[in-house]
C-alpha cells in the first residue's frame, strides 16, 4: 500500500514539474531561513547553560531613579555582596567583578602588549563559575593580591612553550604572579576575558568598599538550592531602602535592587547601561524568529493554495480510488504522505543550502555555529521529524479537501469550481491575503529600519568626529600633555589636539554638581567632562552663548564651567544668556587638596552634542578644566598622507613615553561600531523581506497559472465575443490585486504599531511617514501584478479555438 502511495506521489510530482518546483523551491527557501535563524537563536539561548549549578546563580542589577529619569544598570555598589553574604543565610556565595575600562599593559621579557579583556575579581569566581584549569588551584588562585589567572592563549603569547604557572608578569609595570592557567573561556559564557586579576590588586581603599552609592561592581549571588529568590529579593530590597536610600538621595538619585537569573543575562540585558556581559537582544531574537516563521508560513500556504487549486486535476484519481474501495482515511494518508515527501525533499535541499550559507552567517554574526546533520544522527532525526511535521501541517488541509470529493461528481467530469467546496475558494483568498500582509509588513518594517539606521549614521552629532584619532595618555605624555600637543602640532598634518577625560564615544564621568542658592545648595547629577583649552575647537562643538576656555584667562582653570543647552534647562538657569555668570560648585576628585570644593561660574554655553550613541539621550553636561584627571587625547589630522601622520605621532609618542606603545582608535569608527546591531538587523531584514516576497510571488505565480487554466473556456468565449487582450489581462489580474490590496490595509496598522514600538527604543528617531506605507502598497501591488502578468498575458494571447475544441 505504502509503495503504491509512494509511486503515485512520485509520478504526480514528476508529472506536474512546475507545481513541484514551486513547492519545493518555496518550501526550501522557507526552511532554509528557519534553519539558519533557528541555529542563530539556538546559539543565543545556549549562553551560560553549561555552568554547573547555574540555576542557583543570579546577577544583581539596579533600577536607578533620578531627576533625569530611570535607568537600569548591571553595576551595583560593593556593599550589595558584603551585606547579602553577611545577613542572608540563604546566600551560599557572592562574587564581585570591578567595572573597569581601558587597557592594561602586560609585559614579560620582550613580549609587551595591551590587553583589553581583563577583569578584577574575587577568589569566589571559580566556585560560582567552575571553569576548567590547566594549571593552578581554582580555590586560591585569586585569593592573594598581585595574582593573575590567564587563559592558555595568553599564556602562550607571553610565555611561549614554558609553563606559566608561578611566573611573574608585569601588569602596568607592577609584578604579578600567574596563579592559574585556564583551558579557555567557553564561547557561550556571558563574560569574555583572557586575564583575571585579584580584586585585592586593584588598590581600592577599604572605605570605598563600604559604599552603598558607588555602583562599580558586577555582582553575582549563588543561593542555596531551594531558595525562594522572590522572597530573598523583597527582603534585600527592604534593606536597600533602609541602608542605601539615605546615602544616595542627597546625590539626587535612589535605586532598587533586582536578581537576574544567570540564564537570562545574555538575552535580557540589552536595556542596561553599564554592562560587561556579551549581550544579545531578546527583541531581535524574537523578531527574527517570527520572521523566519513568516517565511515558512508563506511557503506552507503556497502549498495549501496550489494543492487545492489544482485539486480538479486529481479529482478523477480520487473518484476512482473511492469507487474501487479506498476509504477517506486511506486517501488522507496518501495525500498527506505526498506532502511529507515533498517537505522531506525540501528539508534536504534546505539542509544543503544552510550548510553552504552558514559560514557567511557565522562571519556576519561573529559566531562559530556548527551544523552537519549528515554526521549527527540526532540532528538528522530531528530534521526528518521537523520535515514530517511541516508536511503534515501543510498537507492536512488539502488532504481533507481532496479526500472529501464526491466520486459521482468528479467522475461525471464536474470541474473543481463546483467540485471543491466554497470554503476552499474562500480560504485560498484568505491565505493569499495573509501571505501578502506578512510581505507588506516586512517591506514596511525594512524600510523604516533602513531609514532609522541611516538616521543613526548620518545625524549631525553636534561635533565633528571625522579625522580624529584618540588614545589614552601614559607615561610622560600624561604628565606633560601640553608639551606633547605642541610637539604634535609641528607637523602640518596635525590640525589640532586636545587632552581630556570624556571624549565622544569614550568613557566619561557621571558625577554631580552643586548649585548654591538662597534655600541652600542643590545637587544635580551631571556628566562631567574634563577638558583642556582646545577641546571645543578640536571637536568643532558650537558655542551658543558666552565664550570658550581661554589660556589668556588664568582663572579659567579653577573657576570656569561651560555647560550644555540641556544643562541650562536642567539646572534651572532659564536661557543660555541668563546662565552666564551663574555659580556652580563641584566636589573635587582629589580629596587631599586644600580646597575640596571647586567654586566657579558658567562662562559659556555649548550646543548639545552626542558624545554617546543615539541610543541614549544627551543629559546635563558640564565641561571644566581639571588637569589631574586628563586621561585621553584626541588629535585631529588631515586625511591626506594619513600613514605618515600616524607614523609621526608614534614617533613623537615614543620620544615622550618610550615604555608604552601607542594605542589609538579613530573616533568615527568607534561611533559606527555603536550601531552594529542595527546595521545587522537592517541587513537581515532586507534578506528576509526578499525571501518572503519571492516565496509569496512563487505561490501567486502558481495560482495565476491554475486560475488561467481553469478560466480557459471563459477567456476563449470572451475573445470570440470580441474582448481585447488588454481587457482579459485586466480581468484576470483584478482577482489577484484585490487580496493584495486588502493585505496592505491589514498590514499597515500592524506595521505602524510594531515599528513605533521598536523606534521607542531610540530617543532620537525618524518619524514614520505616510509615504512608507504608500511605497509598500505600491510595491506589493506591482510585484503581484508583474508576477501574475506572465500567466495572464499568456492566457490572453492563447488561441481561443484550441481551448474551445478541447472543451
Amino acid at each position, binding site marked *: 500500500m505504502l509503495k503504491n502511495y509512494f*509511486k503515485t506521489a512520485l509520478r504526480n510530482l514528476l508529472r506536474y514539474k512546475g507545481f513541484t518546483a514551486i513547492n519545493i523551491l518555496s518550501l526550501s527557501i522557507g526552511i532554509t531561513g528557519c534553519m539558519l535563524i533557528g541555529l542563530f537563536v539556538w546559539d543565543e539561548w545556549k549562553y551560560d547553560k553549561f555552568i554547573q549549578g547555574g540555576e542557583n546563580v543570579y546577577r544583581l542589577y539596579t533600577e536607578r531613579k533620578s531627576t533625569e529619569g530611570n535607568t537600569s544598570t548591571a553595576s551595583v555598589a560593593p556593599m550589595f555582596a558584603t551585606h547579602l553574604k553577611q545577613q542572608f543565610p540563604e546566600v551560599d556565595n557572592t562574587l564581585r567583578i570591578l567595572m573597569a575600562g581601558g587597557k592594561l599593559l602586560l609585559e614579560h621579557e620582550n613580549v609587551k602588549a595591551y590587553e583589553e579583556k581583563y577583569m578584577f575579581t574575587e577568589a569566589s569566581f571559580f566556585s560560582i563559575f567552575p571553569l576548567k584549569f590547566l594549571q593552578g588551584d581554582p580555590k586560591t588562585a585569586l585569593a592573594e593580591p598581585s595574582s593573575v589567572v590567564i587563559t592558555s592563549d595568553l599564556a602562550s603569547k607571553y610565555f611561549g612553550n614554558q609553563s606559566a604557572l608561578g611566573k611573574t608578569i608585569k601588569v602596568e609595570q607592577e609584578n604579578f604572579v600567574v596563579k592559574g592557567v585556564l583551558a579557555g573561556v567557553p564561547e557561550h559564557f556571558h563574560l569574555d576575558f583572557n586575564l583575571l586579576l585579584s580584586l585585592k590588586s586593584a588598590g581600592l581603599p577599604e572605605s570605598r568598599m563600604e559604599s552603598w552609592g558607588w555602583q562599580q561592581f558586577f555582582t553575582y549571588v549563588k543561593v542555596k538550592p531551594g531558595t525562594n529568590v522572590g522572597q530573598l529579593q523583597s527582603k534585600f530590597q527592604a534593606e536597600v531602602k533602609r541602608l542605601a536610600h539615605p546615602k544616595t538621595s542627597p546625590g539626587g538619585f535612589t535605586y532598587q535592587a533586582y536578581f537576574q537569573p544567570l540564564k537570562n543575562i545574555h538575552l535580557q540585558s540589552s536595556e542596561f547601561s553599564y554592562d560587561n556581559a556579551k549581550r544579545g537582544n531578546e527583541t531581535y531574537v524574537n523578531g527574527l524568529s517570527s520572521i523566519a516563521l513568516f517565511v515558512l508560513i508563506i511557503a506552507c500556504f503556497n502549498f495549501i493554495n496550489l494543492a487545492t487549486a489544482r485539486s480538479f486535476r486529481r479529482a478523477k484519481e480520487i473518484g*476512482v480510488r473511492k469507487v474501487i*474501495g479506498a*476509504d477517506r482515511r486511506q486517501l488522507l494518508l496518501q495525500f498527506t504522505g505526498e506532502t511529507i515527501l515533498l517537505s522531506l525533499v525540501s528539508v534536504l535541499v534546505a539542509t544543503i543550502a544552510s550548510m553552504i550559507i552558514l559560514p557567511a552567517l557565522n562571519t556576519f554574526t561573529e559566531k562559530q555555529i556548527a551544523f552537519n546533520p549528515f554526521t549527527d544522527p540526532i540532528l538528522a532525526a530531528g530534521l526528518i521529524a521537523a520535515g514530517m511535521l511541516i508536511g503534515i501541517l501543510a498537507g492536512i488541509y488539502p488532504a481533507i479537501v481532496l479526500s472529501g470529493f464526491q466520486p459521482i461528481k468528479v467522475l461525471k467530469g464536474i470541474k473543481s469550481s463546483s467540485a471543491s467546496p466554497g470554503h476552499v475558494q474562500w480560504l485560498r483568498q484568505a491565505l493569499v491575503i495573509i501571505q501578502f500582509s506578512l510581505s507588506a509588513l516586512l517591506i514596511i518594517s525594512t524600510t523604516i529600519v533602513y531609514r532609522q539606521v541611516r538616521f543613526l549614521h548620518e545625524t549631525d552629532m553636534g561635533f565633528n568626529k571625522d579625522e580624529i584619532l584618540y588614545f589614552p595618555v601614559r607615561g610622560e605624555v600624561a604628565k606633560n600633555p601640553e608639551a606633547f600637543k605642541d610637539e604634535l602640532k609641528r607637523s602640518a598634518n596635525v590640525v589640532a589636539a586636545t587632552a581630556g577625560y570624556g571624549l565622544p564615544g569614550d568613557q566619561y564621568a557621571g558625577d554631580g554638581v552643586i548649585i548654591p542658592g538662597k534655600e541652600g545648595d542643590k545637587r544635580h547629577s551631571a556628566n562631567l567632562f574634563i577638558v583642556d583649552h582646545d577641546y571645543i575647537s578640536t571637536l568643532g562643538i558650537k558655542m551658543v552663548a558666552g565664550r570658550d576656555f581661554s589660556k589668556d584667562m588664568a582663572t579659567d582653570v579653577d573657576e570656569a564651567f561651560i555647560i550644555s543647552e540641556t544643562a541650562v534647562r536642567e539646572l534651572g538657569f532659564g536661557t543660555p544668556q541668563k546662565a552666564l555668570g551663574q555659580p556652580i560648585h563641584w566636589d573635587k576628585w582629589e580629596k587631599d587638596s586644600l580646597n575640596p570644593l571647586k567654586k566657579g561660574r558658567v562662562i559659556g554655553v555649548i550646543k548639545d552634542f552626542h558624545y554617546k550613541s543615539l541610543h541614549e539621550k544627551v543629559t546635563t553636561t558640564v565641561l571644566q578644566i581639571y588637569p589631574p584627571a586628563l586621561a585621553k587625547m584626541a588629535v585631529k589630522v588631515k586625511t591626506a598622507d594619513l600613514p605618515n601622520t600616524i607614523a609621526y605621532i608614534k614617533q613623537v609618542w615614543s620620544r615622550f613615553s618610550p615604555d608604552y606603545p601607542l594605542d589609538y582608535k579613530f573616533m568615527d569608527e568607534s561611533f559606527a561600531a555603536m550601531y552594529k546591531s542595527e546595521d545587522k538587523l537592517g541587513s537581515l531584514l532586507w534578506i528576509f523581506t526578499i525571501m518572503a516576497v519571492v516565496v509569496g510571488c512563487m505561490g501567486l505565480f502558481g495560482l495565476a497559472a491554475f486560475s488561467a487554466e481553469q478560466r480557459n473556456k471563459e477567456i476563449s468565449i470572451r475573445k470570440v465575443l470580441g474582448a481585447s487582450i488588454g481587457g482579459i489581462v485586466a480581468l484576470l489580474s483584478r482577482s489577484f490585486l484585490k487580496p493584495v490590496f486588502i493585505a496592505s490595509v491589514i498590514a499597515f496598522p500592524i506595521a505602524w504599531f510594531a515599528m513605533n514600538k521598536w523606534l521607542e527604543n531610540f530617543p532620537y528617531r525618524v518619524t514614520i511617514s505616510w509615504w512608507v506605507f504608500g511605497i509598500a502598497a505600491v510595491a506589493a501591488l506591482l510585484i503581484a501584478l508583474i508576477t501574475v502578468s506572465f500567466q495572464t498575458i499568456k492566457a490572453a494571447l492563447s488561441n481561443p479555438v484550441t481551448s474551445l475544441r478541447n472543451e
Partner: protein
Amino acid sequence: MIRIKELEKVYRTEDVETVALNKLTFEVKEGEFVAVMGPSGCGKSTLLNIVGLLDDPDSGSFLFNDIEVVDFNERKRADLRKRNIGFVFQSFNLIDELTVFENVELPLIYLGVKTDERKKRVEAVLDKMQIMHRRNHYPQQLSGGQQQRVAVARAVVNNPRLILADEPTGNLDSSNGNEVMQLLTDLNEQGTTIIMVTHSEHDARYSHRIIRMLDGQTVTENILV
C-alpha cells in the same frame, strides 16, 4: 440480491428542485444481467450510484443481500463496495499516473491482499482480458478499447458479486464495444450479477431484462430471456 423499495432522491440547488428518483421500487436477483434504459435525466445514473453505494437516497429502503444499507456511513459503504461491487464507466476512469498492472492491482491493495497473491490475480485477469502484453503501459498509451478492457479487468479482479456498468461502450467503436459486451456476458455466465445503464438498444439485448425509466420511475420491464 438487491431490493429497492420506494426510493426517493431529490437534487436541490438554490431555487431548483430536481426529482431524480420518485418512489422507485426495483429488484435484481443474484446472477441476473439487467439493463437500465431511459432518456437523459430519467434517474438511471442516480439509481446506479445509489446501488453502487456512491450516493445516499433521501428516503426509502435498499437491501443489499438482505442487509439494509441506507444508514451505512461512508466507511461501511466503502468496505461493502470494495468487497462486492465492481464498476465500469463510459470514460474508463483509469488513473493516469499508474500503469495497466497498477490500475488493476489497486482494488486488491485496498482489500489488503498480499503482494504475491496480488501479482497472481492481476496477471490472471490481464491474461483473460488479453492485455497482458500492455501491462507496463500507461492508460494514455492505449486505445479506447484497450482502456475499457483494463477497466473491466480492474472491476472484476477482486471477484465482485455485482458489476455496475455505466454506458460501458459509450466511448467505443462498434467492434470494441461488442468485445466489451462479450466480456460482460462471459462474466455474467460465470455467475456475476450485472446492472448496466445504456442508451444502446443493441447493448441492452445482451441482458436478461430491460428496465425502462422515465422521471425517476420504472415504466416498463422487458424480460428477454
